[in-house]
C-alpha cells in the first residue's frame, strides 16, 4: 500500500494519491461497490462474462463524455430489450406490489436504452458529414443510425441550398471546403479535449507524454487528461470515462 506523499512521484502531477492510503479507516463499501448485476469485480475483469446492464451503463457514461462517437453496443441493447419484452408480459399477472416493482425495473432499463441512443444521436448530428464519410465511424454506427445520419446531412444541405446557396455563384455552392484560415467546413470531433477517466483494471506504467517519465495507472486511479491519450485504453476497457 502506498501512503501518499503528495508530490513524490516524479513526472506525475497529482494532488490525490492512490485510493488505498492510510489503511485503518478504509471503507470496504460493502454494498455500494457491487455492480447492479451483482457480480463482484475482480482486478482483472472478465469481459466476456460481463452482464449487459453494467456494460450499457458504462457505454452510456462513456458516450456522454467522449468527444467522438464510440462503438455501438448493439448486442447489449438488444439483449436488454429482449428481457424487457419478456418482463413486460409478466407484469399483468402479478399482484400490485410486485407489478409495480417489475414496471419500475423495466422503465429504468428503457430509460437507459433511450438515453444511450439519444446521446448518440446528438453526437451524430454534431459531426454528421464526417461520420457518414469516414469508414471508422460508419462502422461504429448501427444501420438505423447511419440512415439517420445520412438523412440528417441531406436535410441540412437541402436547407442551406434553398435558403441561400442557390443564390450564390455556382463556384461557391460547395459545402465542403477549407476557409483561408484553415477552418474546415466539415467539422471533426476534437479528440484532444479533456476527459475524466478512472482505471478499471491496472494498466501499469503508462506514458502520458513521450518526453516525460511514465506514470503508474492502478485500478481506481482517476485522471483528467486528453481523450486522445487514453483513447486506446478506453477501447480495451482498461479505463472508463466518468
Amino acid at each position: 500500500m502506498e501512503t501518499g506523499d503528495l508530490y513524490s512521484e516524479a513526472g506525475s502531477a497529482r494532488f490525490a494519491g492512490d485510493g488505498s492510503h492510510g489503511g485503518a479507516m478504509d471503507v470496504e463499501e460493502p454494498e455500494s461497490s457491487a455492480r447492479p448485476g451483482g457480480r463482484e469485480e475482480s482486478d482483472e475483469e472478465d469481459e466476456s462474462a460481463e452482464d449487459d446492464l453494467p456494460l450499457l451503463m458504462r457505454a452510456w457514461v462513456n458516450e456522454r463524455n467522449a468527444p467522438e462517437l464510440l462503438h455501438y453496443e448493439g448486442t447489449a441493447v438488444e439483449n436488454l430489450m429482449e428481457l424487457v419484452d419478456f418482463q413486460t408480459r409478466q407484469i399483468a399477472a402479478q399482484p400490485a406490489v410486485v407489478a409495480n416493482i417489475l414496471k419500475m425495473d423495466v422503465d429504468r432499463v428503457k430509460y437507459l436504452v433511450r438515453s444511450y441512443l439519444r446521446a448518440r444521436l446528438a453526437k451524430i448530428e454534431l459531426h454528421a458529414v464526417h461520420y457518414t464519410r469516414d469508414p471508422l465511424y460508419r462502422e461504429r454506427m448501427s444501420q438505423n443510425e447511419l440512415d439517420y445520419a445520412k438523412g440528417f446531412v441531406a436535410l441540412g444541405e437541402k436547407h442551406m441550398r434553398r435558403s441561400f446557396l442557390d443564390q450564390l455563384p455556382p463556384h461557391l455552392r460547395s459545402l465542403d471546403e477549407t476557409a483561408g484560415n484553415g477552418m474546415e467546413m466539415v467539422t471533426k470531433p476534437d479528440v484532444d479535449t479533456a476527459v475524466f477517466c478512472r482505471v478499471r483494471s491496472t494498466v501499469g506504467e503508462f506514458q502520458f507524454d513521450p518526453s516525460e517519465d511514465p506514470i503508474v495507472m492502478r485500478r481506481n486511479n482517476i485522471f483528467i487528461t486528453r481523450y486522445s491519450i487514453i483513447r486506446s485504453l478506453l477501447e480495451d476497457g482498461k479505463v472508463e470515462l466518468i
Partner: protein
Amino acid sequence: MAITTRQQDGFTMPELEYLAQCERVAIVPLHRMERLELVTGTVGPFRPPQKAVVPLWLAVMLKRASRCRIVAPDWLRYEHLRTLCCEEDQPDSLFTRLPHHYLEIAHVLLTNAEDDIVDAQGIRRLLQDLRETRQSKTREGLKMLNSLQLQMDNLSAAEINEIRPLFARSFDMLRRLDALAATGEQTQRQAHASDSHYSELDDTFGSSFAY
C-alpha cells in the same frame, strides 16, 4: 438536439441519481416476498427479519410502501463521517475514500429514509463539512493543472461533474497555449487571423461552421 444544453456539460442531478440508484443497499424487509427476477438482477427472497441486498431504487420503493427498513451503509454513520472529516482536513492530505456516488446515495437516503438513519441531522452537517473541505482541495488542484494529465483519485461522480466545465475548459486552454508555444508557424497564423474583427466570429462560430 436529442439531449439538452444542460446535458452537454456533463450529467444532470437526476441522471446522477439514476446511476446512484443502481448501487445496492441492505434492507430489512417487513413483509415476506418471494424471489424476483428483475432485468437489473435477482432480488430476494425476502424473509423478515433477515437482511436482503437490493438496488437503491427498489429499497426506496419498498421503504415508501412501508415494506422495509433501509440499513444505512457503514460510511454513512456519524462516527465514520467524523473521522473522515478529520482526515480530510489534514494539511496536504489526499481525498478520503468514499463511494463513487456517495453524495447522491446520501441524498436519496436522507430524503426517503431519514427515520432509518441515526442522527440524520448530524450526518447532514458532516456531509456538508466534508463536501466543503473537498471543494477547497479541488480548487487547489486547479492550480496544478497542466495540459497533459492530473491525477485526482477518489473524487466522486457528483464532484467531478461539478468541476467538469471549469477543469475541462482550463485544460483545453492550456493545451492550446502549449500548442501555440510549440510552433512558431502557428503563432504567426494566429497573429494573421487576429488582425481582423472577424477573428472573434471565428471563435464564436468555430463549432457551428458546418451545416
